[in-house]
């Protein structure tokens, strides 16, 4: 039974999986299956050579998962717009994970370039999934530009640091109710993904944490369970945090009234 949707596509799984860096196409295929991922990311590379990817792309195309092409490597809105159009032609999908990077060391999204490209791509008929920071106002401007989904970072791409600013992510969730929010980037461990889900995020997109695991297939399964557990916790209602202890056993003061 579908539990959520992205751009009108019903999905059971809240785990979106990247496809780069796996030891073999077979391991990638098994990881996608173990994750239960229904959306996987792909990319484009400037190359003339037809061979050389060892069948990874062919495997991804036949995995049954919906493809979400990205604009990885783009540094300007113009580059991202051109790459998005090329991705649409090659993958036959209007979905695009929009990446416009503004800093070489952190690979932090450029909010201005991302917004400029998003507005153009929405006008061109794309379903834009912007990779963005957790800045609330930047996110609001992306929604104003026509984005229906937001993908704020948890931490820099590939860093595995987890959610560096839970307050900002919690604020996004509180201020943007009803908007599908997917934490994209920086997730390193299943507990990070569970935390994102407990914050009320709708999904998690990750790649390196699975691809670089000693056993990617087992890690994909672990992430799927963590995401399910975290979402379950959010839906059940996590208790309010207290600064001091609050006794749970309903005793009346101390057990013995002995002076």
């Amino acid at each position, binding site marked *: 039974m579908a539990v959520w949707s992205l751009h009108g596509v019903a999905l059971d799984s809240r785990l979106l999986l990247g496809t780069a860096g796996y030891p073999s196409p077979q391991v990638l295929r098994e990881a996608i299956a173990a994750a239960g991922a229904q959306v996987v990311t792909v990319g484009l590379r400037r190359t003339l050579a037809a061979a050389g990817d060892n069948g990874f792309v062919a495997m991804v195309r036949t995995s049954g998962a919906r493809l979400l092409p990205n604009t990885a490597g783009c540094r300007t809105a113009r580059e991202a717009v051109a790459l998005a159009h090329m991705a649409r032609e*090659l993958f036959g999908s209007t979905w695009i994970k929009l990446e416009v990077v503004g800093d070489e060391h952190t690979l932090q999204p450029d909010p201005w370039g991302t917004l400029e490209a998003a507005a153009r791509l929405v006008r061109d008929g794309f379903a834009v999934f912007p990779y963005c920071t957790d800045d609330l106002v930047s996110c609001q401007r992306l929604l104003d530009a026509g984005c229906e989904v937001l993908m704020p970072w948890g931490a820099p791409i590939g860093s595995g640091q987890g959610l560096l600013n839970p307050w900002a992510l919690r604020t996004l969730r509180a201020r943007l109710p009803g908007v599908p929010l997917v934490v994209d980037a920086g997730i390193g461990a299943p507990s990070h993904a569970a935390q994102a889900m407990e914050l009320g995020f709708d999904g998690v997109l990750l790649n390196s944490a699975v691809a670089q695991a000693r056993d990617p297939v087992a890690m994909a399964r672990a992430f799927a369970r963590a995401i399910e557990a975290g979402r379950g916790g959010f839906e059940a209602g996590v208790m309010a945090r207290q600064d001091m202890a609050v006794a749970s056993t309903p005793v009346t003061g101390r057990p013995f009234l002995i002076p």
Partner: protein
Amino acid sequence: MPAEPTVQINGERLPWVAGEHVAGALARIGVASDQVATALNGEFVARNRRAATPLAPGDVLTVFRPIVGG
């Protein structure tokens, strides 16, 4: 003697051929046109526009293929 006019394809300089279009350039370098996407001077050139998009001296043609990605 002036230098021969060239075009660049993925960083490689090739002689410019008068009257050649994007589709012709792909054929000249042996690239199967249905497996790549193209941009001319940074602007997307759709598959159905390649035969109508001429190359000029100094043009930069970029050819992309699908890969795995995050």
